[in-house]
């Protein structure tokens, strides 16, 4: 039986949206891939390389983008959905450019928002130029511009884990999962380029959840001599030279630490970016962590409280690129089954 072509609106053109669009188009559906920015790619566009294999992020993105060059996929960049109405089993999406899209299903692939490091006031992010976030370090690596505030190669870099994650004070109890291994990846990259630079990671726990992550962590210690200190930094401030002075406790030896560093990198976690027009208009349920709630965490992960509305990727929970791609494909199959079921 040949299934009648259905229309699916995908909100968000990051890795989840791109992968789901390619899968759905491959299954014979018509897709609107709606992205508010001028280019597809989401946060992946900002990354230099990806753990655990250190494959260039742009190479991965280009490969994924090659799959959406498909006549069944209509890419709408610089576009936001202003309103959405459900009429029976269909969804009428109105874009900010005035276009109305009549969809059989909606896939939320809105990704995440990087935690605003300025909320951790004790680190002076935004106030001291030597305090940067993990994406700013990634941009330095991508642009081959790893420099301290004086424009020199940093003599020391400190990466501080768990900024905005597992932190009751900012209302985020969850682990953002990817920050530990991102710090390890970035620490290795700094040492690879500048072996003379000292690199420290300050952590609460090291959570290496994926395949070959633990090996990467070992490599950082054994091959690249990255120093891992179990302890959270309590305070950071700049001195006259623009260096950052930090205070911490090394909880393994039970001693307070004072150090200076050229760069303090705050490994920012992921926050839900789910308070957006489609979710509000349709009433998609969110969990206690403010990410979209799955209909069932085991068997219907990509389904929501609303038939015909699905989720994929980091809008459901912090997620790495590998899991996002797998999750987006799972979402595509769920949508295909849902539409096939209606036939």
């Amino acid at each position, binding site marked *: 039986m040949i299934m009648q072509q259905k229309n699916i609106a995908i909100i968000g053109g990051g890795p989840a949206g791109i992968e789901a669009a390619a899968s759905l188009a491959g299954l014979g559906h018509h897709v609107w891939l709606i992205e508010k920015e001028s280019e597809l790619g989401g946060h992946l566009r900002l990354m230099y390389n990806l753990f655990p294999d250190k494959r260039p992020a742009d190479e991965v993105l280009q490969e994924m983008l090659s799959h959406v060059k498909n006549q069944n996929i209509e890419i709408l960049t610089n576009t936001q959905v202003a309103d959405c109405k459900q009429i029976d089993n269909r969804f009428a999406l109105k874009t900010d450019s005035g276009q109305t899209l009549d969809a059989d299903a909606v896939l939320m692939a809105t990704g995440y928002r990087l935690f605003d490091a300025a909320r951790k*006031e*004790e680190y*002076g992010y935004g*106030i001291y130029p030597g305090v940067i976030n993990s994406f700013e370090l990634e941009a330095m690596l991508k642009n081959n511009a790893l420099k301290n505030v004086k424009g020199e190669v940093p003599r020391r870099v400190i990466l501080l884990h768990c900024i905005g994650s597992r932190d009751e004070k900012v209302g985020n109890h969850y682990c953002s999962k990817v920050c530990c291994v991102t710090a390890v990846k970035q620490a290795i990259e700094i040492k690879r380029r500048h072996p003379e630079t000292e690199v420290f990671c300050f952590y609460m726990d090291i959570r290496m959840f994926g395949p070959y992550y633990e090996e990467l962590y070992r490599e950082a210690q054994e091959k690249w001599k990255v120093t891992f200190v179990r302890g959270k930094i309590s305070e950071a*401030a*700049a*001195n*006259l030279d623009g260096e950052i002075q930090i205070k911490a406790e090394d909880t393994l030896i039970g001693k307070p630490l004072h150090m200076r560093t050229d760069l303090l990198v705050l490994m920012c976690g992921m926050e839900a970016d789910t308070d957006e027009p489609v979710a509000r208009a349709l009433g998609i349920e969110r969990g206690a962590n403010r990410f979209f709630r799955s209909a069932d965490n085991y068997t219907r992960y990509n389904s929501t409280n609303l038939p015909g509305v699905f989720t994929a990727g980091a809008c459901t929970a912090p997620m790495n690129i590998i899991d996002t791609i797998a999750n987006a494909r799972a979402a595509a199959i769920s949508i295909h089954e849902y539409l096939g079921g209606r036939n």
Partner: protein
Amino acid sequence: MSEQCVAKQNLWAKYQKDIADDHYYYCRSCIRQTFFPASERAYLNIMRDKLGKDLFDDPNHTTCTGIAYHSDLVPLQTTETVVARHFALMTEAGYENMAISCVTSFGLYTELLHTWEEYPEEEARVRQYLWDATRREFKKPKNIAHTSDTIYKFRNEIAAQMTRPLVNVKTGEPLKVVDHIGCHYAKMFPTKGVGGAEFPRVLTGMVEAWGGAPIDYPERRHCCGFGFRNYLVMANRGYSVANSKKKFESMAPYKPDFIVANCPGCAMFLDRWQYTIQQMEGTTYGADGQGIPSLTYEEMAGLVLGYDPWELGLQMHQVPVEPLLDKMGIQYTPRDKWTGKKH
């Protein structure tokens, strides 16, 4: 405006507390009236005569027991009952707004009001204790301000009456000012302090309004070392000095013209410990082998308003203030410093 300034302003915008604009029940500070008695007189004078405000200076007001409470010498219930009596005195006097001279008291009143909000049964117990002991009842204050909050609130009105800005008359440059905020002002309850706990605004707002330039140095947020037991228990005093020393060493490279504190204990220790360190080690931290003058904010306000330095009680400081007076172009008669007479 630089990005750093914008970041600080964004931060301060989050911590703009409500400060009553008139009719205050004034709570004196045990240690301010002992260390710097003229500061409290100057405060009352500025508020009443320069700003036209109504304050009730109640002779029945006593210690809040704060220092004894934090030193584990007085049980919590006793402290609560004493504070409840202060609220009763305020209620009987027909006032609703408190202006509290001591940072320890300010922190304690704030802490107890918060405790009673969280545990109403505790408030009921304390009301009974107060009734049993004194037959008094009380209303909780509508507004609680530290007295530095009120000067901050009226800093522009004071600037309009200013006769001696915080400017070096010889160079025309703004005086460089280290501000020090008592730990119990905002570190326990950041929303109760102007500007929050990490980058407090209450004193830098005054300094800037009156022509000076605040210094942000690495140990700015560090405790002065008073710490109650640190000082009160003789065996711990070395720890108290060590904390102040850490701050002096950190601020010295910025060549501050003076230190200003909103906590009477901090103003005292940042002054006296300079003498102690000079005697112990021969180290001084100001220019030309001098110390760094350490003022209360009432004294700073009095100086810019043209008060006589000896009327302000500046002779009570261990570190001589004359170099600062010379920089500000303030005329003074040296022999009046100790005679208490006008010559």
